[in-house]
């Protein structure tokens, strides 16, 4: 079932609503990121339990080290 979400600010269509499948579909392989759905952080341990809903805002937060 196809689903439309907002991925890093852009409307994006996905074939999978299961989060782990969606990440694969979005080609997010690097594990060194944090993830937020609708401006709430989702710990890695919860990824397998999450199903994305229509118009969910999925955001990848990349670590930065400068100072």
């Amino acid at each position, binding site marked *: 079932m196809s689903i439309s979400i907002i991925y890093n600010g852009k409307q994006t269509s996905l074939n999978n609503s299961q989060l782990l499948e969606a990440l694969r579909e979005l080609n997010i392989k690097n594990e060194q990121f944090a993830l937020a759905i609708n401006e709430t*952080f989702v710990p890695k341990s919860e990824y397998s339990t999450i199903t994305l809903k229509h118009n969910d805002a999925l955001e990848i937060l990349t*670590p930065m080290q*400068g100072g």
Partner: protein
Amino acid sequence: MTANGKNNKPEQQAFSGSEWLRYTRHIQLPQIGAQGQQALKQSHVVVIGCGGLGSPVLLYLAAAGIGHITLVDGDTVDLTNLQRQILFGMDDIAQPKATAAKQRLSQLNPEITLDAVNEPLSLNNAESLIAPADLVLDCTDNFATRYLINDVCATLKKPWVFASIHQFSGQCSLFTPGDGHACFRCLFPEMPTGVADCNTAGVLGVLPGMLGMFQANEAIKFLAGLPTPLNNKLLLVEAIDLTFRQIQLTQSSDCIVCQQHKSADELDDFYSAACASNESDPLEVSAGYFESIKNNEEVLLLDVRTHAERSAFHMNGIHIPLSDLEGTISKLSKNKTIVCYCQSGTRSLKAAKQLKRLGFTCHSLKGGLATWLKSVR
């Protein structure tokens, strides 16, 4: 005489006349008042890193009258710092940052106590430096130190204000261990690798200024008992389109620090693994050796930076960006010794390794152009 006139002991005063004048504009704020200003005066803050973030943080915390500030940095001031590290001037170049910062801050506010620690935060000193603090400010420029701050603050239940920056983007948060909120490891459980720092990726000079001021703002409010909305929230700043967003944080159920209560000592290998990249490779040559051979006829200098970097400054020789090297290698002659260079020595070492595998005699300039330029100036 006291107000009730019962004895003639001198009445206790929170501030001297000069302090009272200095902090008048704070004391006038109903949300701070004399009580809040006194809380700042009685606070001990440890600022780890006196660079891009540390500069505005320290200037504002010292000006605000934080009574005791410990400054921790093992680095010295460099010309490339002055584009954003506004604590320092030309006279400070080559001076230890913590000492130079202390000098500048004691001119700004002689009423406060300043301790300069001219060494990097490490497993050896972290606990003793952080233990007396009411609040820690993370103004470091590397992941290893940031995780060390997180882990030690978790063990000692010390609140800390995090910020980090990259090019035009920044993040900031207030972590308060022990209250069930997320920690930095909940957010990023593993030490990221291959992430550029300011030295290689570049950074907009005002960006650490912006993020440092958000840190100072949360710190002052926290210590004065005012609301701190960044507690358990991550602020995301984009300086290009000037957007500000907040992400609600939540504790991770498998966090090795929050849930399994691992201490910094138990995680020793974790920090040292992150610093392993500082070791020398046999292909690397020093700036001094590079200077002595760079004009030899049998030496071919190879610049592996991008076209944009080369157009800003170069040292003659030939130019093949690292990304194009593989397709161009066959055109290079094996009669000469190839000495690769780039900005900081990382890409040139990759290039030299690639060339060596194909039978070339080659070297890489350790520390890159940045180190060589400093050594010959």
